[in-house]
């Protein structure tokens, strides 16, 4: 099956060790899996099991201590900081639990920021950002600053920002962690729509209800994959 669908992600034996003085903390102890293009995967596991660490490695924000990582066919485990930034810019979109929007900057400019770093000229930038905002249902909030938006709206802006460079993979670490259940449902519906249009999505969640939106759940414990398959309900 791997040979039929092109792989978005291919991690083999990835480990991550944090040095805490003389003590070594192994956050990931050899993780191996592949994710095909168009898949919608949830990563679950108890607190401290290494979910965020894995997401940071997948998101090229951090480097694995050992193991190999192919993103969209490119080996990213040996790249320098600037090449990693380039990968984050063009191939990855990251959504955070705390939204992480630029505070004094309106929604449109927040969404347009990755395009600026990609060197897209101003007019095109604004048009593309406006289009992306409309796609997450916030076309009429372009000039609002983050503090003039609700939590759910802020997360939509963050999702629009993550998608504006048309990345190969959308990564979300507990994207609904700061939202109430109704707003969570709206965000999950948005993810489902995006996946239906072919977007590869990996999200971390504590919440089985949220994770059940995915087609596949990878469960971690103590830095290892303990199960990998479709949600129990299906």
């Amino acid at each position, binding site marked *: 099956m791997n040979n039929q669908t092109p792989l978005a992600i291919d991690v083999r034996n990835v480990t991550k060790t944090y040095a805490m003085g003389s003590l070594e903390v192994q956050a990931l102890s050899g993780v191996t899996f592949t994710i095909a293009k168009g898949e919608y995967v949830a990563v679950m596991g108890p607190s401290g099991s290494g979910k965020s660490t894995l997401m940071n490695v997948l998101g090229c924000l951090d480097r694995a201590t050992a193991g190999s990582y192919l993103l969209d066919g490119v080996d990213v485990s040996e790249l320098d900081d600037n090449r990693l930034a380039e990968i984050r810019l063009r191939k990855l979109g990251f959504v955070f639990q705390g939204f992480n929007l630029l505070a004094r900057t309106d929604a449109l400019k927040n969404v347009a*920021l990755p395009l600026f770093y990609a060197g897209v000229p101003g007019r095109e930038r604004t048009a593309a950002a406006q289009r992306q905002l409309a796609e997450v249902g916030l076309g009429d909030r372009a000039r609002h600053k983050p503090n003039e938006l609700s939590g759910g709206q802020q997360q939509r802006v963050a999702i629009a920002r993550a998608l504006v460079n048309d990345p190969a993979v959308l990564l979300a670490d507990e994207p609904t962690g700061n939202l109430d259940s109704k707003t969570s449902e709206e965000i999950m519906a948005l993810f489902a729509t995006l996946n239906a249009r072919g977007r590869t999505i990996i999200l971390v969640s504590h919440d089985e209800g949220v994770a059940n939106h995915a087609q596949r759940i990878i469960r971690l414990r103590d830095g290892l994959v303990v199960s990998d398959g479709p949600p129990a309900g299906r």
Partner: protein
Amino acid sequence: MIYLEEALRVLFANKVRSLLTMTGLIIGVGAVIAIQVLGSSMAGAVNGALGDMADNSFIVAPNGVQGNFRRAAIKLTDITAIEQDVPNIEQGIPLGGQNFLVQNGHHQARYFLTPDSSQPFNDSPLLYGRRFTSNDIADATNVAVISYRSYQKLFPHGGDPTGRSIYAGIHRYVVVGVLAAPKRGFINAQFGGDITIPYTTYVNQYVHDGVAGAARFIVADASRMNLTEIAVMKQLKALHGDQKGLQYQTFDKSQLTKGINGIFGVMTIVVALIGAVSLVVAGIGVMNIMLVSVTERTREIGVRKAIGARRGQILAQFFIEALLLCGFGCGIGLAIGLSIGWIVNQFAIVKVTGYVAPLPWVESLLIAGAFTIVVTLAFGTYPAYRAARLDPIEALRYE
């Protein structure tokens, strides 16, 4: 340009802080430029005034402070001997001055009568008539060239006074020339007397003991002025019995110019020192506030990096912020410095010297520009570099 837009927003979001940070630059650049404006207008005033002074002659006089001052006094015979024996000397002219009530009818005022030759010490232009001719000198005629000031006093009704007579003591002089008003103020007046008469006439009428005191020598080759001055002083000592204690001094235009330029040189060094100190102090302020800014915005930097900003792009953002801060500071300093310089120039220097110096725009702009660039490079680079080097994960985790 998004960097500029964002930097502006940050600076204006922290108005008070930005302004306080700029104070050092404002004061430093303001002071340097104000002093620079004043220095250049004063230099212009002085050099402009010296411009009319003859550059082919020098004055020699006994040192004022010496035991044998009397013995050292230059005699008419000394001048003749030097004219004959010292090479490069064209003419020797005794100096001196006689105070008289000078009269033209009932218009009168006290003036110094001073000797001069056909090659005058003060080369300023004439309003009427002519200078002394070599015939005036050779025949010791009773003629006078008068200053504009004395012309106004003695001929209050104006008009061309040449050919008319003025009286001083028992002598009558025919006015042959009137100097134009000194265009550059007071300094000129010191080089030219109010009433000048041919030096031969002066000697005949007023020097009865054969002692001139001081003398002016016109040289053939101005480039050998220094050597000639030394030779003259040596000859004077020899003529006066080679007394050990005898001392003479000389003045010429290039000496005066050098002296004045020396003063401005010292001023330039002082300005440079003020500049350097304020540059460092202001720079440390800029660096401090930029480091604060980087720390405050660690999370923001983390977000930008997570989105995909390269190091250079983060560096550029903070660098431009520092540049803008410095640019604003130096710009305000430039405006204040030029204003202070202009005001003092208008209301003090022009009043006193009569010389209108142009504002040194280009130099001032260069100074402000150089300050901006140097402070930004020296003190803005490190904070920007720190921002660019931040690890995205750690920056995102920063509270």
